[in-house]
């Protein structure tokens, strides 16, 4: 569908008009990344292991989260709530366009830009720091890794969209989002691998969708999961993908009903 391609392209162009702020934001990301990177390098000297992680595995995990972060955990759907509140949603309801796909296309444009920058940054880090990077060669793991990343992309998109839909009922769309972002930083495993947590806590996290956003795909990449673990993990993420999709769909229908009945 060409219209969605153009939406993605326009989003890309739009980002280019704010080059400076985008570059600044990326620099912030790099600094954040380097902080965690050096921290782990000190905690885990070469040759030692911590809770089953050697230095190279841990550093790969940390750099990997950064890459997936920019592919998966970037979504522009935070603006959905504002559009509902400002009444701009009307513009979409009156045009033959799918609002979900509209935002998904915007996200694709956004992600494409972020992927380009991430790859450039990681290459730079790779050349300068020469980290002992773990490279997965087993195509079986790589395949499941990619599949799992795609699932997490959808989970994150729907979760974010859902948060935006709060706008149908309340103008305060930001407070829930801040809580969400904070929870996410912890539960998705962007600071450390989740399996270094006590086993009981991890067993609970395993059933939440957040685990499958970063931690799970990277564990597959590192080749640390058995086939059974991969299968059950994928099953849980597929379940969440559909569950959240249906929740978003139902919420959208309900919100639209009140929107069109009460007007704005």
């Amino acid at each position: 569908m060409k219209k969605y391609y153009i939406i993605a392209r326009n989003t890309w162009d739009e980002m280019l008009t704010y080059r400076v702020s985008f570059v600044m934001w990326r620099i912030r990301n790099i600094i954040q990344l380097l902080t965690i990177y050096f921290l782990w390098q000190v905690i885990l000297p070469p040759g030692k292991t911590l809770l089953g992680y050697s230095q190279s595995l841990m550093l790969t995990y940390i750099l990997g989260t950064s890459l997936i972060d920019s592919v998966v955990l970037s979504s522009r759907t935070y603006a959905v709530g504002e559009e509902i509140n400002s009444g701009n949603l009307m513009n979409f309801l009156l045009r033959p366009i799918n609002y979900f796909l509209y935002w998904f296309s915007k996200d694709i444009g956004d992600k494409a830009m972020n992927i380009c920058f991430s790859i450039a940054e990681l290459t730079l880090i790779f050349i300068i720091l020469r980290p002992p990077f773990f490279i997965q060669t087993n195509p079986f793991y790589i395949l499941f890794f990619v599949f799992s990343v795609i699932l997490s992309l959808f989970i994150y998109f729907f979760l974010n969209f859902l948060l935006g839909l709060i706008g149908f009922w309340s103008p305060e769309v930001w407070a829930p989002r801040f809580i969400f972002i904070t929870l996410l930083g912890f539960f998705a495993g962007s600071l450390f691998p989740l399996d270094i947590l006590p086993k009981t806590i991890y067993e609970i996290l395993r059933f939440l969708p957040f685990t499958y956003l970063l931690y799970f795909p990277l564990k597959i990449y590192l080749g640390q999961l058995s086939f059974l673990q991969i299968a059950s993990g994928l099953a849980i993420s597929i379940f969440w993908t559909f569950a959240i999709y249906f929740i978003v769909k139902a919420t959208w229908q309900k919100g639209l009903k009140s929107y069109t009945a009460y007007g704005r």
Partner: protein
Amino acid sequence: MTISVSHLSKHFQVHQKEPGVIGSLKSLVLRKYETVKAVSDISFKINEGELIGFIGPNGAGKTTTLKCLSGLLYPTNGKISVLGFNPYDRKIEFLKKIALVMGQKNQLWWDLPPIDTFLLNKEIYGIENEKYNIVFEELTKLLDAKDILKVPVKKLSLGQRMKMELMASIIHSPKVLFLDEPTIGLDVLMQKKLREFLKEYNIRFKATIILTSHYMADVEQLCKRVIIINFGKIIFDGQLSNLIEQYAPYKKLSVIFREYVDPKKLDKLGNISNFQYPKLIINVPNKKINSTASSILKNFPVEDITIEDPQIEDIIEKVYTQEDKRKK
């Protein structure tokens, strides 16, 4: 029949909040709802190619009606048919044939030039290249927009942006066009241009247009037929000329005297609305206009005399206030 509305009503549940923190807390626990009847039981029919002025004071229900017609609001009661569709279904075929332009809502991409939004709309509406090019050229010429097509929207002035919003909204050449305050915030020259454009569009595309506006000049120059709405009800539906006859069957006669005239002598001329030497303004029934004018010319020292139609604003005001009184 392009548009047919029968017994349309739209009520809103609006929740009431007392001012202040205590009011906010109260409303958290105990929400009071009040039903607001934005539109109650209105009916009208509009034929293809008509250009209708939809007027009424603030909060009369104009925008609500337009939203119902375009499918944004679900009617509480009544039936609407636009181009044979039920608007609320928002079928793709329906959406491709209509447009709602709201003076205060924007669809242009803020950081990009307008042409990018047009190209996106071209794909959204599935317009073929050839047809797009023709319409694009034509609209560019009609709106005199050649120089601003490639300037980022954020750098355009309000008037330029309105032009571009309008162009983005009608690039798919809709058969039915709803315009909500299209001239709001524009200067006199731009208003005039926009009016000329709408007139031209109406003729060239055989489009049916409903227009709401606070500027009576918009209505006067564009619309043969007007629908006046107040308190959610239609109080007049008909030709603009009939409205004038019905509510203002008089002409405005202004006279400038050369010498001082005794006001008492003027009394017998009829209903004097204002006399401040040397200027006299008098409202004369249409039938008596000739005799009154000639008697003034004969009996008084006149410097200048003009006969005008009453101002449309005055008439509308009269309609509103009469309705207000009836309400009370």
